[in-house]
């Protein structure tokens, strides 16, 4: 029997020669197959990448929020009876939390402000000099309030408000005077543009900042509603918030303290991220099924059309391994080229989409591997499996038409 043993050492070179001639002669059909595979693969890659970009875009809202800043919201029993504070002693809170960087109380009233005959409604924020660092504000001109300004009628003007109050020929400058109710306040600083954040309930751009004492002149009963606190980055923020509850409750008239912590918002964000992750998974799975089915059809068609050829090759002496190797290499070559083209196409499509949607484009780490590997897997399986089934038949069955 040894004389007729099938050739075990059939060289890879021969096989490659077979495959290349086979792909070459597949001609138009292999181009169509490639197209189908590339579309399937690109849809997976593009879908996953677009979805990840969308998720990233959505989470950008939360970016830039300081993670070591938090807000204490104070409730007071009866606002009418408690007079507004003239001063705020930060020292007692520093004792409770040693790593406290800044603690700034804010009292709020709305008032109409007048500058050179132009009248506007603005948010008045009564606070201390520490607010600048607590809120991480930056100045365009002049300076912020300091603890020595308590008795002075000084204001710091937010960016947009300063733009609206001033005219093109006479912009608002430091040293100008603004009338609020019946008091004239001197502008000592103008802030730079500062987008609103989710955490801090102050619209810096449209606000006028003044001292607590100055605030009391305008509204004798304006209460401290929020305390903005910044701790050093190494400080455990939850512990700091807990430690501050009691000292804050000691403030006159305060009945309750609610802490608004960044990680509460972060929780919301991570819930949103989770939602996006599920959406992404669903989109990926659906496009995998869709793309995979396309690739499957292409490969199934390719093999079933060649069942008779498998029979002929077996009659000529191809053993099962020869048939399997031939179809496996063809399937790998076809799907590899198709998956590569599809990957490039999909990334290109995702880039175009991100560009048109004004999103920042980045390459999602899962997109290419998932798209390419699933295409390879599906393509090789459905390119190989029917061929292996056909090679297990008696040659006469494979040779029979249909």
């Amino acid at each position: 029997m040894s004389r007729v043993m099938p050739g075990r050492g059939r060289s890879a070179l021969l096989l490659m020669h077979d495959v290349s001639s086979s792909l070459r002669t597949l001609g138009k059909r292999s181009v169509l197959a490639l197209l189908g595979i590339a579309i399937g693969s690109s849809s997976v890659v593009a879908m996953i990448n677009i979805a990840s970009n969308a998720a990233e875009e959505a989470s950008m809202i939360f970016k830039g929020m300081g993670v070591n800043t938090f807000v204490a919201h104070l409730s007071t029993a009866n606002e009418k009876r408690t007079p507004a504070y003239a001063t705020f002693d930060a020292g007692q809170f520093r004792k409770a939390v040693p790593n406290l960087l800044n603690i700034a109380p804010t009292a709020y009233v709305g008032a109409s402000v007048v500058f050179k005959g132009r009248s506007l409604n603005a948010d008045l924020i009564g606070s201390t000099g520490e607010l600048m660092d607590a809120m991480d504000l930056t100045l365009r001109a002049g300076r912020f309030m300091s603890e020595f300004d308590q008795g002075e009628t000084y204001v710091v003007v937010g960016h947009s408000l300063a733009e609206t109050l001033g005219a093109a020929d006479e912009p608002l400058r430091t040293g100008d005077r603004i009338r609020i109710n019946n008091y004239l306040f001197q502008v000592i600083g103008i802030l730079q543009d500062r987008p609103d954040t989710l955490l801090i309930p102050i619209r810096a751009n449209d606000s006028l900042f003044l001292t607590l004492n100055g605030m009391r002149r305008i509204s004798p009963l304006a209460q401290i509603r929020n305390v903005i606190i910044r701790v050093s980055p190494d400080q455990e923020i939850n512990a700091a918030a807990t430690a501050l509850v009691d000292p804050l409750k000691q403030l006159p008239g305060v009945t309750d303290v609610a802490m608004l912590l960044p990680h509460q918002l972060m929780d919301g964000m991570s819930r949103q991220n989770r939602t996006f992750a599920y959406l992404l998974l669903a989109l990926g799975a659906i496009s995998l099924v869709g793309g995979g089915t396309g690739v499957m059809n292409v490969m199934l068609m390719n093999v079933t059309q060649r069942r008779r050829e498998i029979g002929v090759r077996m009659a000529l002496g191809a053993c099962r391994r020869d048939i399997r190797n031939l179809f496996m290499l063809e399937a790998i070559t076809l799907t590899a080229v198709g998956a590569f083209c599809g990957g490039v196409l999909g990334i290109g499509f995702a880039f175009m989409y991100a560009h048109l949607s004004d999103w920042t484009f980045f390459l999602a780490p899962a997109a290419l591997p998932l798209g390419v590997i699933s295409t390879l897997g599906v393509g090789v399986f459905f390119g190989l499996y029917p061929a292996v089934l056909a090679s297990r038949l008696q040659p006469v069955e494979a040779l029979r038409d249909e």
Partner: protein
Amino acid sequence: MNNTTIESLISLKGINKGYKINNNYLPILQDVFLTIKTGESCALLGASGSGKSTLLNILGLLDSVDAGEYRFAGHDVCSATPDELAAIRNQQIGFVFQSFNLIPRLNAIENVALPLRYRSMKPGDARQRAQQMLAEVGLEQRAHHRPADLSGGQRQRLAIARALVGQPSLILADEPTGNLDPGTADDIMDLLISLNRAHDVTLVVVTHDSAIARRLNRQIRVTNGAVQELCPCPA
């Protein structure tokens, strides 16, 4: 090889073959005994559905038998694995089909070289052998034509070249002239018979044409699954 006597190339003993269709067993071949020696030329005659094609497929190791003993060139075919059968087909048997069964995507020389590729011959050597074989059947000018660009007679010559390229001991032809006009059919039969004589290769031809059958050494008629020697001519 059998060590007592020189064995016949083909020896069928009590072969039975049938198909199951809708749970009914339909016998095709019943208790067939047949011996063919090396170098003989045989015609298998019979009406459509008589079982002659099934017999040819069994002879060519393309189909399994249900019962009986088949020895081919010293090998017990019934106990061989599919891959061993493939190797025997590759080295000992050449097929000529009625519908040619050439691979349409390969050109003439690639089609002829195909059996050699399945015995690990180097591509260069295989092409050289294939080119010689094409010359022997008169197709040396058509080496780079696809089967679709060839006439019916040329395609069958190509198929004969492919059957012969591996220097087999047996050529099995299933109605080789069935799709050809009479003139071309004569040419093809001339070619097959001359190759049978020149290479001492055993030739078995399935046909329903008694004129073709008369040109061969032996004529075996298949009727309802049984074989009957019409004109036994010992070689």
